[in-house]
């Protein structure tokens, strides 16, 4: 595996302060390696978007980072902790090193400005020395990169289709050639045909430009196909992490297994599926022990009182799971 580019260590995010705080993300450890696509899957309320906002320091109040660190490794130079950057440093860091494509990115373009203006704005903010012709050339190049003809430069967002707007957003995210691109449900609002077009294009761009992607979605079947590694979040914690093929082949955590069996298959035999009984947990009243135990078909003695730690199970050192069925060697001794 290549070297890490972004390391999240014991990151916790709360909404609110004091006793009434809702702990949306708890002690998350996650490492993104250079050039890989890391899929982060979870249901609504699992904390996956909060994690993305937390690590980019984009959390709106009352969101507070209550602990942990986010270490970014630049191509050259010493690692930096994103959470301790000063506002000026942060401003230079954002977009140049990590960029983000938001949920419903189709609507994050400004409707009253041309696409060219919006693309050039990014470049002007970070490279003030560049003249207008150079910026325009770069904007044209970015559009070509995402497969839109350059004569669309003078279009307003409403003149573009949903898929094209999404591509413009991806082009904009790549404007400064960042090392890390965070994508929060980038294709949820799109049709499957368009979704596949955009994702194949993204895979191609990644191959060419070598950035790493943190891909956040609720659609696990999509991740299995498009990402290298997958992390599953439930109730604010990562419950399982594994290479995509291994996770799909043999899920260790019962929640992952349930999720994988929540998607009807398009091919192969038709099976009776059940989904997962119950509903996702309320973050204000999290169950004790493992957050999944009230819905878990295989819950047993320790599950409702002791929290399983995320660690490699004895027989598979390159993956990690937080479940008493597969206790990590060191967790078992705790």
């Amino acid at each position, binding site marked *: 595996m290549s070297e890490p580019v972004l390391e999240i260590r014991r990151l916790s995010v709360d909404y609110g302060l004091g006793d009434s705080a809702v702990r949306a993300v708890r002690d998350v450890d996650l490492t993104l390696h250079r050039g890989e696509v890391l899929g982060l899957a979870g249901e609504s309320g699992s904390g996956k978007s909060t994690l993305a906002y937390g690590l980019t320091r984009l959390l709106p109040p009352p969101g507070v980072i209550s602990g942990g660190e986010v270490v970014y490794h630049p191509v050259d130079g010493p690692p930096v902790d994103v959470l301790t950057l000063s506002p000026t440093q942060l401003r230079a860091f954002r977009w140049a090193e990590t960029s983000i494509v938001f949920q419903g990115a189709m609507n994050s373009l400004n409707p009253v400005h041309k696409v060219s203006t919006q693309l050039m704005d990014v470049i002007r903010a970070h490279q003030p020395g560049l003249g207008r012709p150079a910026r325009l050339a770069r904007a044209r190049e970015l559009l070509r990169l995402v497969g839109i003809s350059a004569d669309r430069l003078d279009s307003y967002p409403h003149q573009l289709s949903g898929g094209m707007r999404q591509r413009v957003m991806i082009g904009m995210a790549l404007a400064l050639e960042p090392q890390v691109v965070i994508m929060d449900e980038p294709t949820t609002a799109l049709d*499957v045909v368009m979704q596949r077009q955009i*994702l*194949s294009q993204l895979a191609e761009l990644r191959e060419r430009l070598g950035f790493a992607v943190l891909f956040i979605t609720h659609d696990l079947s999509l991740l299995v*196909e498009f990402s290298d590694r997958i992390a599953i979040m439930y109730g604010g914690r990562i419950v399982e992490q594994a290479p995509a093929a291994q996770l799909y082949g043999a899920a260790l955590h019962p929640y992952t297994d349930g999720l994988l069996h929540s*998607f009807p298959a*398009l*091919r192969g035999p038709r099976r009776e599926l*059940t989904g997962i009984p119950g509903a996702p947990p309320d973050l204000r009243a999290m169950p004790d022990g493992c957050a999944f135990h009230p819905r878990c078909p295989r819950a047993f003695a320790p599950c409702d009182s002791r929290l399983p730690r995320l660690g490699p199970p004895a027989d598979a050192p390159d993956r990690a799971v937080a479940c008493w069925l597969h206790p990590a060697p060191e967790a078992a001794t705790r």
Partner: protein
Amino acid sequence: MTTPTPSAPAAGAEVLEAIGLTKHFPVRRRLRGLFSRTRTAVHAVDDVRLTLHRGRVTALVGESGSGKSTVARLLAQLYPRTAGTIALHGEPVTVRGGRPFRAYARRVQLIFQDPFASLNPVHTVRYHLTRALRVHGNAGRTDADLDAALRRLLERVRLTPAERYLDAFPHELSGGQRQRIAIARALGADPEVLLADEPVSMLDVSIRLGVLNLLRELKERFDLAILYITHDIASARYFADETLVMYAGRLVEGGDSETVTQRPAHPYTRLLIGSAPDPDRITGDGGTDVAERGDGEPPSLIRPPAGCRFHPRCPVAMPRCAEELPPRLTVGDHDGHWTACWLYHPDVTGAGAAAAPVGGEAGR
């Protein structure tokens, strides 16, 4: 309430049928348009023919903007239609509000996509369900009758014990529970037909199947005819007996769900199935199909393409496709499998392996 299917004909009988269903939404005229004779309109639904059978689920699959929700609203008679007939048990019905609409709604109920929006946040579950029962005359005479009816409804959607849910407000329920309440409300009318417009697409992945399985159970218990509208063709395969595929306002293929998903005939259905996420096709961009790249977008429905509406994107389009609208043609691999595509016309298939349509000269 006790006899859920009054005057029930045999299972599998036709309940609701639409023939030539068409809806054009007028577009506001611009100044320039004032001088022209032609009125512009969005051709949202054109010439849709479908039949819902008792005890069967029919899926209507299409991308957003293909007109599938409009079909549901037309069948529920929420919109007046531009042309076509809707027949309930063989009798054409047209209702515009008032008592006739209520009588119709008693038999044909609609479930909406978003349970966060379809329930009134200031009212309790009890209020929502009581209203449905009262409006459709199923509340009984006494308070005890009403209470029993409420409990029965909640039991049907598997929300038990009823006390826990009756006085809850929508915000106290999870998405899945809310959608169950919306289903219970529809059942309060004791309908024969449920029109479910993307009933699970707003729900969390892990609870979608629970709701679909509930709908299937209700279908079997009460012999309901269900129209399941979805953009997810895999769930249509899982849940529906019959699948219809819609593209740009027209039906392009239909038949038994298994046949349509395993042996798709229309190039659009093939594209749709090829694009669906498939965990078994691991890594990268997979096999890039011919039609996948380039300008792959649905057409404008204000000026839809002549002939087959898919021809501008179709990888196997022939000259004829741009000129003539393909009729429903039998595919021939399975009973009732049809498609609106010239590839399956006897002129083409009769010519054997020849790629070009040779018409009447084939037998020369």
